[in-house]
Protein backbone atom coordinates (compact mmCIF):
# COMPACT_ATOMS: atom_id res chain seq x y z
CA UNK A 1 0.00 0.00 0.00
CA UNK A 2 2.79 2.37 0.88
CA UNK A 3 4.22 1.45 -2.48
CA UNK A 4 1.00 2.07 -4.35
CA UNK A 5 0.56 5.51 -2.81
CA UNK A 6 4.04 6.45 -3.92
CA UNK A 7 3.34 5.17 -7.40
CA UNK A 8 0.19 7.27 -7.60
CA UNK A 9 2.11 10.43 -6.91
CA UNK A 10 4.62 9.66 -9.64
CA UNK A 11 1.75 8.85 -11.95
CA UNK A 12 0.19 12.24 -11.59
CA UNK A 13 3.27 14.07 -12.73
CA UNK A 14 4.20 12.06 -15.80
CA UNK A 15 2.03 11.80 -18.86
CA UNK A 16 0.52 8.47 -19.79
CA UNK A 17 -0.21 6.97 -23.16
CA UNK A 18 -2.65 4.38 -24.32
CA UNK A 19 -2.25 3.13 -27.87
CA UNK A 20 -4.77 1.23 -29.93
CA UNK A 21 -4.22 -0.31 -33.35
CA UNK A 22 -7.42 -1.33 -35.13
CA UNK A 23 -8.17 -3.10 -38.42
CA UNK A 24 -9.55 -0.93 -41.24
CA UNK A 25 -12.96 -2.57 -40.84
CA UNK A 26 -16.21 -0.81 -39.89
CA UNK A 27 -17.17 -3.60 -37.51
CA UNK A 28 -14.44 -2.62 -35.04
CA UNK A 29 -15.47 1.03 -34.75
CA UNK A 30 -17.75 0.17 -31.84
CA UNK A 31 -14.71 -1.25 -30.00
CA UNK A 32 -12.91 2.06 -30.50
CA UNK A 33 -15.91 3.95 -29.12
CA UNK A 34 -16.05 1.68 -26.08
CA UNK A 35 -12.33 2.06 -25.36
CA UNK A 36 -12.54 5.83 -25.85
CA UNK A 37 -15.48 6.10 -23.44
CA UNK A 38 -13.64 4.00 -20.88
CA UNK A 39 -10.53 6.16 -21.03
CA UNK A 40 -12.48 9.43 -20.97
CA UNK A 41 -14.44 8.18 -17.98
CA UNK A 42 -11.26 7.13 -16.17
CA UNK A 43 -9.66 10.49 -16.82
CA UNK A 44 -12.63 12.22 -15.22
CA UNK A 45 -14.67 13.73 -18.06
CA UNK A 46 -18.41 14.06 -17.43
CA UNK A 47 -21.08 12.20 -19.40
CA UNK A 48 -21.61 14.91 -22.00
CA UNK A 49 -17.89 15.35 -22.57
CA UNK A 50 -17.50 11.59 -22.93
CA UNK A 51 -20.16 11.60 -25.67
CA UNK A 52 -18.36 14.47 -27.43
CA UNK A 53 -14.97 12.77 -27.32
CA UNK A 54 -16.43 9.44 -28.42
CA UNK A 55 -18.09 11.00 -31.47
CA UNK A 56 -15.04 13.07 -32.42
CA UNK A 57 -12.74 10.05 -32.27
CA UNK A 58 -15.22 7.93 -34.22
CA UNK A 59 -15.45 10.58 -36.95
CA UNK A 60 -11.66 10.63 -37.28
CA UNK A 61 -11.59 6.81 -37.43
CA UNK A 62 -14.31 6.74 -40.08
CA UNK A 63 -12.16 9.08 -42.17
CA UNK A 64 -9.09 6.88 -41.62
CA UNK A 65 -11.09 3.92 -42.90
CA UNK A 66 -12.87 5.58 -45.83
CA UNK A 67 -10.32 8.13 -47.05
CA UNK A 68 -7.10 6.80 -45.58
CA UNK A 69 -7.46 3.11 -46.37
CA UNK A 70 -4.00 2.20 -45.14
CA UNK A 71 -2.38 -0.69 -46.98
CA UNK A 72 -1.31 -2.67 -43.94
CA UNK A 73 -4.91 -2.91 -42.85
CA UNK A 74 -4.70 -1.13 -39.49
CA UNK A 75 -4.91 2.44 -38.26
CA UNK A 76 -3.75 3.81 -34.92
CA UNK A 77 -5.18 5.83 -32.09
CA UNK A 78 -3.03 7.34 -29.36
CA UNK A 79 -4.48 8.77 -26.18
CA UNK A 80 -2.12 10.99 -24.20
CA UNK A 81 -3.32 11.93 -20.76
CA UNK A 82 -1.78 15.05 -19.36
CA UNK A 83 -2.55 16.92 -16.18
CA UNK A 84 -5.04 19.30 -17.73
CA UNK A 85 -6.00 17.74 -21.03
CA UNK A 86 -6.36 14.62 -23.08
CA UNK A 87 -4.84 14.54 -26.54
CA UNK A 88 -6.00 11.99 -29.07
CA UNK A 89 -4.26 11.28 -32.34
CA UNK A 90 -5.86 9.19 -35.07
CA UNK A 91 -3.23 8.14 -37.59
CA UNK A 92 -3.51 6.27 -40.84
CA UNK A 93 -0.82 5.51 -43.36
CA UNK A 94 -3.19 5.86 -46.28
CA UNK A 95 -3.36 8.09 -49.30
CA UNK A 96 -3.47 11.41 -47.48
CA UNK A 97 -5.13 14.62 -48.67
CA UNK A 98 -4.64 18.34 -49.19
CA UNK A 99 -5.56 19.72 -45.78
CA UNK A 100 -6.22 23.21 -47.15
CA UNK A 101 -9.00 21.80 -49.35
CA UNK A 102 -11.11 20.65 -46.39
CA UNK A 103 -13.98 23.13 -46.12
CA UNK A 104 -16.71 23.97 -43.64
CA UNK A 105 -20.01 22.49 -44.86
CA UNK A 106 -22.52 24.97 -46.27
CA UNK A 107 -25.77 24.80 -44.34
CA UNK A 108 -28.09 25.48 -47.26
CA UNK A 109 -26.48 22.89 -49.50
CA UNK A 110 -27.82 19.75 -47.79
CA UNK A 111 -24.56 17.94 -48.48
CA UNK A 112 -24.44 14.26 -47.67
CA UNK A 113 -20.74 14.41 -46.85
CA UNK A 114 -18.22 16.82 -45.42
CA UNK A 115 -19.61 16.84 -41.87
CA UNK A 116 -16.96 14.73 -40.11
CA UNK A 117 -14.11 17.21 -39.71
CA UNK A 118 -16.60 19.97 -38.91
CA UNK A 119 -18.08 17.87 -36.09
CA UNK A 120 -14.63 17.08 -34.69
CA UNK A 121 -13.70 20.79 -34.68
CA UNK A 122 -16.99 21.68 -33.00
CA UNK A 123 -16.66 19.13 -30.21
CA UNK A 124 -12.98 19.36 -29.29
CA UNK A 125 -11.00 22.27 -27.87
CA UNK A 126 -8.19 22.10 -30.42
CA UNK A 127 -7.82 20.15 -33.67
CA UNK A 128 -4.84 19.83 -36.01
CA UNK A 129 -4.88 17.87 -39.24
CA UNK A 130 -1.63 17.00 -40.92
CA UNK A 131 -1.40 14.97 -44.07
CA UNK A 132 1.10 13.97 -46.71
CA UNK A 133 -0.16 12.74 -50.06
CA UNK A 134 0.62 9.05 -50.25
CA UNK A 135 1.95 8.95 -46.69
CA UNK A 136 -1.15 9.20 -44.56
CA UNK A 137 -3.06 11.54 -42.32
CA UNK A 138 -3.03 12.38 -38.61
CA UNK A 139 -5.93 14.10 -36.90
CA UNK A 140 -4.79 15.40 -33.51
CA UNK A 141 -7.42 16.66 -31.15
CA UNK A 142 -7.36 17.99 -27.62
CA UNK A 143 -10.00 18.26 -24.92
CA UNK A 144 -9.40 20.13 -21.67
CA UNK A 145 -10.07 18.25 -18.46
CA UNK A 146 -12.61 20.15 -16.39
CA UNK A 147 -12.85 22.61 -19.23
CA UNK A 148 -16.38 23.80 -18.57
Amino acid sequence: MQNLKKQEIITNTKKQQIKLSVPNEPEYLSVVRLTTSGIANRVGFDLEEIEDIKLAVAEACTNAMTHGKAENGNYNIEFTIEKESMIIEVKDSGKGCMVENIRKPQERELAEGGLGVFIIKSLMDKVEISSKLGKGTTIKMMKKIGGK
Partner: protein
Amino acid sequence: MSLDIKTTYIERETVWCVELVGEIDIYTANKFREMFEELYEKKRENIEIDAKNLDYIDSTGLGVMIGALKKLRKENKKITIINVKSNIKRVLEITGIDKIFIEN
Protein backbone atom coordinates in the same frame (compact mmCIF):
# COMPACT_ATOMS: atom_id res chain seq x y z
CA MET B 1 -23.49 -2.08 -30.82
CA SER B 2 -25.91 -2.84 -33.62
CA LEU B 3 -28.98 -1.38 -35.25
CA ASP B 4 -32.55 -2.67 -35.24
CA ILE B 5 -35.19 -1.04 -37.42
CA LYS B 6 -38.96 -1.40 -37.28
CA THR B 7 -41.04 0.22 -40.01
CA THR B 8 -44.83 0.61 -40.02
CA TYR B 9 -47.00 2.40 -42.54
CA ILE B 10 -49.82 4.32 -40.88
CA GLU B 11 -52.58 4.42 -43.48
CA ARG B 12 -54.74 7.00 -41.72
CA GLU B 13 -51.95 9.57 -41.50
CA THR B 14 -50.19 8.48 -44.69
CA VAL B 15 -46.85 8.37 -42.91
CA TRP B 16 -44.07 5.83 -42.43
CA CYS B 17 -43.16 5.30 -38.77
CA VAL B 18 -39.54 4.21 -38.37
CA GLU B 19 -38.35 3.05 -34.95
CA LEU B 20 -34.58 2.91 -34.51
CA VAL B 21 -32.93 0.89 -31.77
CA GLY B 22 -29.14 0.96 -31.31
CA GLU B 23 -26.37 2.84 -33.02
CA ILE B 24 -25.80 4.20 -36.52
CA ASP B 25 -22.22 4.37 -37.71
CA ILE B 26 -20.25 3.27 -40.76
CA TYR B 27 -20.90 -0.36 -39.83
CA THR B 28 -24.70 -0.12 -39.58
CA ALA B 29 -25.27 2.73 -42.08
CA ASN B 30 -25.88 0.34 -44.99
CA LYS B 31 -28.84 -1.19 -43.23
CA PHE B 32 -30.17 2.31 -42.56
CA ARG B 33 -29.72 3.31 -46.23
CA GLU B 34 -31.38 0.15 -47.50
CA MET B 35 -34.35 0.79 -45.25
CA PHE B 36 -34.92 4.22 -46.88
CA GLU B 37 -34.59 2.67 -50.34
CA GLU B 38 -37.14 0.03 -49.46
CA LEU B 39 -39.68 2.53 -48.15
CA TYR B 40 -39.11 4.68 -51.24
CA GLU B 41 -39.91 1.73 -53.49
CA LYS B 42 -43.01 0.80 -51.51
CA LYS B 43 -44.64 4.17 -50.93
CA ARG B 44 -43.20 7.64 -51.39
CA GLU B 45 -44.64 9.19 -48.26
CA ASN B 46 -43.55 11.28 -45.30
CA ILE B 47 -41.28 9.48 -42.84
CA GLU B 48 -41.32 9.98 -39.10
CA ILE B 49 -38.28 8.60 -37.26
CA ASP B 50 -38.78 7.68 -33.62
CA ALA B 51 -35.32 8.03 -32.05
CA LYS B 52 -36.39 7.12 -28.51
CA ASN B 53 -34.04 4.13 -28.49
CA LEU B 54 -31.37 5.48 -30.81
CA ASP B 55 -28.22 5.86 -28.71
CA TYR B 56 -25.78 7.16 -31.25
CA ILE B 57 -25.51 8.58 -34.75
CA ASP B 58 -22.46 9.94 -36.53
CA SER B 59 -21.89 11.85 -39.78
CA THR B 60 -22.25 8.67 -41.84
CA GLY B 61 -25.77 8.19 -40.49
CA LEU B 62 -26.64 11.86 -40.92
CA GLY B 63 -25.39 11.64 -44.51
CA VAL B 64 -27.77 8.75 -45.19
CA MET B 65 -30.69 10.75 -43.80
CA ILE B 66 -29.82 13.81 -45.86
CA GLY B 67 -29.54 11.65 -48.98
CA ALA B 68 -32.93 10.11 -48.33
CA LEU B 69 -34.50 13.52 -47.68
CA LYS B 70 -33.15 14.93 -50.95
CA LYS B 71 -34.92 12.21 -52.91
CA LEU B 72 -38.17 12.59 -50.97
CA ARG B 73 -38.22 16.38 -51.31
CA LYS B 74 -38.55 15.95 -55.06
CA GLU B 75 -41.86 14.22 -54.30
CA ASN B 76 -42.77 17.02 -51.86
CA LYS B 77 -42.40 14.70 -48.89
CA LYS B 78 -40.38 15.16 -45.73
CA ILE B 79 -38.50 13.33 -42.97
CA THR B 80 -38.93 14.31 -39.32
CA ILE B 81 -37.32 12.97 -36.15
CA ILE B 82 -39.02 12.74 -32.76
CA ASN B 83 -37.91 11.76 -29.24
CA VAL B 84 -34.28 12.66 -29.83
CA LYS B 85 -31.82 11.95 -26.99
CA SER B 86 -29.67 14.82 -25.75
CA ASN B 87 -26.37 13.60 -27.21
CA ILE B 88 -27.95 13.17 -30.65
CA LYS B 89 -29.74 16.51 -30.38
CA ARG B 90 -26.33 18.06 -29.79
CA VAL B 91 -24.93 16.65 -33.06
CA LEU B 92 -28.00 17.76 -34.96
CA GLU B 93 -27.69 21.27 -33.56
CA ILE B 94 -23.96 21.57 -34.19
CA THR B 95 -24.39 20.63 -37.82
CA GLY B 96 -27.53 22.74 -38.25
CA ILE B 97 -29.41 19.62 -39.31
CA ASP B 98 -31.93 20.02 -36.49
CA LYS B 99 -33.59 22.79 -38.54
CA ILE B 100 -34.20 20.32 -41.36
CA PHE B 101 -35.42 17.32 -39.39
CA ILE B 102 -36.88 18.56 -36.12
CA GLU B 103 -40.25 20.30 -36.22
CA ASN B 104 -41.25 22.92 -33.70
